[in-house]
């Protein structure tokens, strides 16, 4: 039995089901990260002296990571546009670049975390590092999740292009929406934790 409305739009919502599903999921993600931003405000306002991000964190590395994520976002949307233009080879190219930027982000994060641990800075050291590791750690988990799904659609999942190209294009659009959301969260994490 075929699952209905995964290509055609439902008459009542005007959307295919997967798209509405990912937006509901992203709404729940807003509340997940929103809770942590709320905790950050609570912790920061609860003390007289909140450390500057530059006291603990590496701004140039984080700036490079921001550029990596922004670049991966544009290559992600380009990969979807390539499918819309019926150019599968370009889709593969842009998806590969997206994955490389995502791995680059993780490598830099690894160096950042390693530097903290080598200085004996842990989540338990103080509230600033506690919220820093919690928020960036959760964000890193989202990056890893994104890599797994994008990687699947780059590799074995891309076979669907031959059998059902419209549905495959929709799948790439859905994972793209998730990936842009992960980028969007970082756009706020970067100034809040590193610069303010």
């Amino acid at each position, binding site marked *: 039995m075929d699952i209905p409305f995964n290509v055609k739009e439902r008459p009542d919502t005007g959307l295919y089901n997967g798209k509405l599903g990912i937006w509901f999921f992203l709404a729940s993600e807003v509340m997940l990260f*929103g809770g942590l931003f*709320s905790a950050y405000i609570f912790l920061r306002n609860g003390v007289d002296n909140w450390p500057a991000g530059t006291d603990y964190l590496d701004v140039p590395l984080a700036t490079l990571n921001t550029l990596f994520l922004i670049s991966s*976002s*544009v290559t992600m949307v380009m990969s979807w546009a390539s499918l819309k233009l019926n150019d599968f080879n370009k889709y593969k190219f842009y998806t590969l670049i997206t994955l490389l930027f995502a791995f680059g982000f993780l490598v830099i994060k690894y160096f950042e975390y390693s530097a903290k641990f080598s200085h004996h800075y842990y989540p338990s050291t103080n509230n600033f590092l506690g919220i820093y590791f919690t928020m960036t750690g959760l964000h890193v988990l989202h990056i890893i999740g994104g890599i797994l799904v994008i990687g699947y659609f780059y590799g074995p999942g891309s076979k669907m292009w031959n059998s059902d190209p419209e549905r495959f294009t929709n799948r790439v659009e859905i994972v793209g929406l998730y990936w842009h*959301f992960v980028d*969007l969260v970082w*756009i706020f994490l970067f*100034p809040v934790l590193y610069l303010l």
Partner: protein
Amino acid sequence: MTPEEVKHHVKTYVLVFVALAFLTIVTVAISYIDLGVKGGIALGLFVASIKASLVACYFMHLLDEKATIYWTLIATAISFLILIFLPVGAFLAQARVY
């Protein structure tokens, strides 16, 4: 979306990318300017909001979406604002007590 429309969108994506990269540099640059804690936070979050809007409007195509998604996002935004302003309300209540 027709292929012509997609081609037009691709040009927009590149422009948005350039704007995002530029605004990232601006975000870092303003952190070096002494605006005080409140001024720094306000300006930093203002620039971050512009960047987030660009991603949402162009990469996530929110400029041209169905009403169902807009209603979902309005409900999310209201819930998010309540969540964010809970600690602010708590601090204001605390300030009145002391």
